């Protein structure tokens, strides 16, 4: 058995805190070690679940884009830019989504899906709340739920300062989509 990636990162953190930092006299160097500590902490927090999260996100994004495409199709009849978004969605969903579990492949697929989602969401912001926009409003709500779940993941240095109360409320609510919305 050998140390896992997370155990190795923890070893690097321990060395920084216990061996290197005490030897440093410069405030600037100490500040840099603290930043590196936090950088390592953010890696530790996502290391184990990164592939699973990306894989699941990509599935969710596919489903969100499908629903968005259906919602937009009705509104797109006389609007060229919406027609182009619908066509972008169709093209994106036609692409082979069965990527490998290599993180960079998953991340690349995620980025292309999110790029299309970006176009969709910007369009939705113009269309939401209008008469007959029920489908768009529903799809928009689902998209934001997903984006909230992604944004609440992992570790941030702000969770120990500015966002402490906010993140504690989210975590005590179970961190689910509905809980996120409830404490929002």
């Amino acid at each position, binding site marked *: 058995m050998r140390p896992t990636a997370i155990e190795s990162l923890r070893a690097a953190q321990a060395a920084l805190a216990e061996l290197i930092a005490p030897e440093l006299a*410069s*405030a*600037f160097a*100490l*500040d*840099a070690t603290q*930043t*590196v500590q*936090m*950088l390592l902490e*953010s890696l530790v927090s996502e290391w184990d679940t990164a592939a699973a999260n990306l894989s699941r996100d990509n599935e969710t994004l596919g489903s969100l884009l499908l629903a968005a495409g259906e919602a937009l199709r009705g509104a797109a009849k006389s609007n060229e830019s919406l027609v182009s978004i619908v066509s972008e969605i169709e093209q994106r969903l036609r692409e082979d989504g069965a990527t490998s579990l290599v993180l960079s492949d998953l991340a690349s697929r995620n*980025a292309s899906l*999110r*790029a299309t*989602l*970006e176009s969709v*969401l*910007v369009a*939705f*912001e*113009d269309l939401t709340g209008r008469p007959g926009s029920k489908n768009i409003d529903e799809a*928009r*709500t689902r*998209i*934001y739920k997903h*984006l*909230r779940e*992604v*944004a*609440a*993941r*992992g570790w*941030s*240095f*702000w*969770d*120990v*300062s*500015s*966002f*402490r*109360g*906010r*993140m504690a409320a989210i975590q005590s609510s179970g961190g689910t989509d509905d809980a996120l919305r409830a404490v*929002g």
Partner: protein
Amino acid sequence: MLQKRIEAYLSGKIGAESVAVSHLQRIPGGASRETWSFDATWPENGKEVARGFVLRRDPDASLLETERDLEFRVMDAVAGHGVPVPKMYWLESEGAFLDRPFFVMERIDGCETSPTKVLLDPRFFPLRTRLAERFVDILARIHSLDWRARGLDFLGAPADEGACGAMEIEKWEGVVGRDALEPQPVLRAAFRWMRRNLPPPAQRIVLIHADYRTGNFLCDTEGEIRGVLDWEMVHLGDPMEDVAWACIRPWRWLGDENIGGLIEREQFYTQYEEASGFTVIPEAIRFWELLGNVKLAAIFLTGARSFCEGRTRSPMMAFLGRNIARLELEIMDLMEV
């Protein structure tokens, strides 16, 4: 060697035959420029003069692409008009002396600036009310400055009071467009939301510090603010922009709802209204708070791009680029989506 080069530079500026620089050290903070502190001594009229200085030098890459000339000129212009700032000495816009542009200003000793110290050091606990009062009062003073009389027209005023919001959207949307390395659905949607929900016209166009918050002032152990720092983003605009920026969650350092870790929101508004004569308008604050979070995310994107393109090896740039998610959460809260 930097020390020798600073000595040579100061000799020319001060007109002294010899200047000795000591205790030269790079200090943390001010991520948009390198910040160096040092002591200098030189002979003058038969006596030895000793003074502490801070040198701010342009980095190879930064969180913000700002003009140091602008920061220097504004700090110089507001000094002595009720806004405490370090005295500005010299500005060098070329890299002839220290490879990159820089300016030199007074070092104000005996003060703290780190939010951790100001908010968590027991010495400052009894001073928090006093500090909050000074924090609000100085913000009101910045907003009451006659920027035309101070020669700050060069900052470029918005076309009219109603144009302030759109002008800032334009600026930060440009930064996101230029620097984002991956899709940013939340930020893009937020820009759209803001365009549909522009704030009411500014009550007056004022000087905006644009980074006024706990962490950007020097305070002493009497609870006095002796220097307002980091004027890189200064511009002319809506006073509500500064009020809202001070309120955003990233600057509520203690993890509760207190503004800047110092003061309850309602109290902050009341004191600001009394000190400034402006009315705090909730819908304007919501817009500007949302823009503030988007702006901070945009600044982090700039740092992340610098890192990814190899223009800096600063771990801070890498780290901040990985910390946009919490801002997105806040942005979606403010959009109420």
